[in-house]
């Protein structure tokens, strides 16, 4: 009995091995799908990391490229190009990139230089205009910080092996329809209440830009006004803000980072990465016990200081960080302000977007409570496309095109910063690159494709398709009418803002990147426990915004690499 059982097992195993061997020999698993290779055309294979922006924009880019190059020959005996792409979540290393059949890669959330040895030099593309219709070269479409990041010195020359792709940022999205209906705009004259409410003709406050008659009128200009608005929304029986419990640290952490950037400005923020002796203008003075000091009037005492790598820890004292931490504390410690599942680990970003769209509606709401604001990125509508469609099936008024949402300019920590412009930080390391070692014809076609993707026309098309900008300078005015009200807000906001890229060409920063990169830099020891982000430190560790700031400073100073 045992013998026969054993034989059966061995037989089964051997049969499996034989099957695998046959499969390996016959190349099983390498069948093509409906999109067969056209032998008369040069074929380009693209890999794109599967994330929030989807791949419709890439389909359109491929179609446009195929059309534009239909009569161009890159390889002998072939005319035109066939472009295919694969959206996947695979993680690559340099050897895998080299080994793969993909020619072009759109990566996200990583640094391009880990692949640099296996990438094609794109310098000729970068230094030329992507299209005759463009007024700027590709290089000119980039910010100085991007050029610094993407440029690699070879001898005396700067070469480029990758180019930026998506823009990535978190912010506050507000339900314009709800704001209009309930009058959730701050009133210029507060004597009849903080918001305009039912008095739709009441004059709105001038908003964060400090100017009357601009689109941000009535939106909160300061943190204080923001929380006044939240109180009003709560009192009107709506939920002021929502974020996904599952990713609360990520969404709120990025929002906080933007609040810091918006307060400090590009030059002051760069100190956090460059440590090059620039004077930090507003460092909070901490006393001998590491506590924030205040003068006799109760104002926080600040000082100026040159910041080098030897005293880089002082940059943690920037007052914008203190204000932003206090903002986060106020937001997350008052449950009047946020949604029920804001701290539930199963509650994902798509659940949150769904509730943001549905709550308060006649057909989908669980009660009469609407959600006024959402903390998310510009891609949220793309991720919610299916929910819009399902809601539209019940009533066309719920269609994406029939609902109005806005991108709220960030409120300022202090009144003196109102009207001083916006700064945001791009956290997303998203880039496009071409694999090295391709045959001459394919290489040429691949580089043409990357160049084509940088043309103003295709950059605009990306924005029209996704509703979000790409990380280049380009003018959207000719296509603004194709955008939703939300996308218009995002584009206007980005166009009128300065950007801080969280990277430095300082060797010091790169040598200590494990502790200085944006998603761990705010670590602190709170009540004996190590927290990696402000949200957990306050919500779970029991810190206040101020005490977290102090603990963060204490922790930051203790790194042994300051020298």
């Amino acid at each position: 009995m045992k013998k026969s059982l054993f034989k059966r097992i061995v037989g089964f195993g051997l049969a499996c091995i034989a099957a695998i061997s046959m499969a390996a020999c016959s190349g099983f698993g390498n069948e093509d799908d409906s999109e067969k290779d056209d032998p008369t055309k040069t074929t380009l294979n693209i890999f794109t990391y599967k994330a929030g922006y989807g791949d419709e924009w890439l389909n359109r880019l491929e179609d446009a490229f195929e059309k534009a190059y239909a009569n161009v020959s890159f390889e002998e005996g072939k005319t035109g190009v066939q472009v295919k792409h694969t959206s996947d979540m695979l993680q690559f290393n340099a050897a895998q990139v080299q080994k793969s059949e993909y020619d072009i890669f759109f990566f996200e959330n990583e640094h391009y230089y880990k692949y640099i040895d296996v990438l094609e030099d794109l310098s000729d593309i970068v230094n030329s205009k992507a299209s005759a219709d463009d007024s700027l070269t590709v290089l000119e479409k980039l910010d100085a910080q991007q050029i610094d990041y993407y440029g690699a010195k070879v001898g005396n020359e700067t070469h480029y092996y990758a180019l930026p792709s998506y823009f990535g940022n978190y912010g506050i999205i507000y339900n314009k329809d709800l704001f209009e209906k309930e009058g959730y705009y701050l009133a210029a004259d507060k004597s009849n209440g903080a918001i305009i409410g039912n008095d739709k003709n009441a004059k709105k406050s001038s908003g964060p830009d400090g100017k009357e008659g601009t689109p941000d009128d009535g939106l909160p200009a300061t943190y204080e006004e923001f929380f006044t608005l939240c109180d009003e929304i709560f009192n009107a029986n709506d939920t002021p803000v929502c974020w996904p419990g599952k990713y609360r640290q990520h969404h709120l952490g990025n929002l906080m980072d933007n609040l810091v950037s918006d307060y400090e400005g590009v030059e002051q923020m760069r100190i956090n990465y460059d440590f090059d002796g620039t004077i930090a203008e507003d460092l909070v003075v901490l006393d001998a016990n590491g506590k924030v000091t205040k003068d006799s009037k109760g104002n926080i005492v600040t000082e100026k200081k040159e910041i080098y790598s030897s005293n880089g820890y002082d940059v943690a004292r920037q007052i914008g960080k203190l204000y932003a931490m206090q903002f986060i504390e106020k937001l997350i410690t008052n449950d009047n302000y946020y949604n029920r599942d804001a701290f539930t680990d199963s509650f994902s970003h798509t659940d949150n977007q769904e509730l943001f769209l549905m709550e308060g509606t006649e057909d989908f709401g669980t009660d009469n409570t609407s959600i006024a604001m959402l903390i998310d990125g510009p891609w949220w509508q793309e991720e919610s496309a299916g929910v819009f469609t399902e809601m539209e099936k019940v009533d066309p008024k719920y269609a994406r095109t029939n609902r109005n949402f806005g991108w709220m300019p960030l409120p300022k920590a202090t009144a003196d910063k109102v009207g001083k412009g916006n700064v945001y930080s791009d956290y997303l390391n998203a880039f496009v690159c071409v694999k090295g070692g391709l045959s001459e014809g394919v290489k040429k076609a691949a580089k043409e494709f990357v160049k084509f993707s940088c043309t103003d026309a295709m950059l605009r098309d990306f924005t029209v398709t996704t509703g979000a900008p790409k990380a280049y300078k380009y003018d959207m005015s000719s296509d603004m009418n194709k955008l939703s009200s939300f996308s218009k807000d995002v584009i206007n906001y980005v166009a009128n803002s300065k950007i801080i890229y969280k990277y430095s060409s300082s060797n010091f920063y790169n040598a200590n990147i494990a502790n200085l990169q944006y998603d761990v830099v705010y670590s602190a020891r709170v009540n004996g426990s190590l927290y990696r982000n402000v949200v957990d430190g306050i919500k779970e560790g029991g810190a206040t915004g101020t005490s977290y700031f102090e603990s963060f400073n204490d922790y930051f100073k203790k790194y042994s690499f300051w020298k």
Partner: protein
Amino acid sequence: MKNLKSKSFKSAKSMWFFIAILAIPLLQFCIFYIGVNVNSFILAFRNITLDAETKKYVFSWTFDNFINWFGDENEFLQLTQTLLISLKSYAISLIIGVPLGLFFAYYIFKKLPGAMFFRFMLFMPSIIASIVLVSIFRYFTDYVVPEALNVFHIELSGALLSEKSTRYATVMFYNLFVSFGTTVLLYSNKMANISPEIIEAAQLDGVSPAREFFSIVLPQTFSTLSIFLVTGIAGIFTNEINNFSFFNYYWKPDTATLGFLMYFRTQKAKGDISQYPPLAALGLMMSAVAIPLTFLARWFLNKVGPSED
């Protein structure tokens, strides 16, 4: 060689057979363990930095990767806090998980009511992919458990995994919950090998089930138990008690173990090799502690463990 042959092998043919059947697995080991991991060993002594101008990595030799874990106050804090949680988790597994596993196995061995069903159910979590089971467990504790407790008028202040006061207990509950599959299976089958005559003789002598368990069954199962105890030592340093499955890359100071510290830092590096050397050094240091500890535990258990006879 001759001496070896005469002691261990009946004939030269036996020796050649021994060599033949080991040759390929050992070759595989040399290539895919030693060959591959030698880099990891070397990595512990490398200093890798990015030249920000050329965007190329620059390599040099250093001991700082070891020293920094103790010399840098913050690194040391991480090390000690995660080590404490690792030890706590190991102790809980040892004090609660191991006895429960043995008792469950005894229950099954005695074929008490529902024994086969329970054995089936205890093994069930092992066959469900962890990605699936964790997800169901998280949903269940987030949404269903609070509602169920409401029925008994127990109000939770937040979801079990989100609240600091309940999170560690919930994570450990899950870890214990899924741990019984293989251990109970091994224990109960080992118990099944106990000679029925011994058990019958004990029953005729009127020994209580507790006495039977501690005096007969446990000693007979000890060799199996000791294997789990010995190999479990490594778990102190490597077990991440499902931190990643529950909390992704979010650091929870009350549940982050040494294993998770390594995982967290590796993932945060996003393939940037300049961040690996300190982790490789930590891995080596953990091995330096774990290896003698494992052999010590094995020696100790062999010495104090009851004889099956």
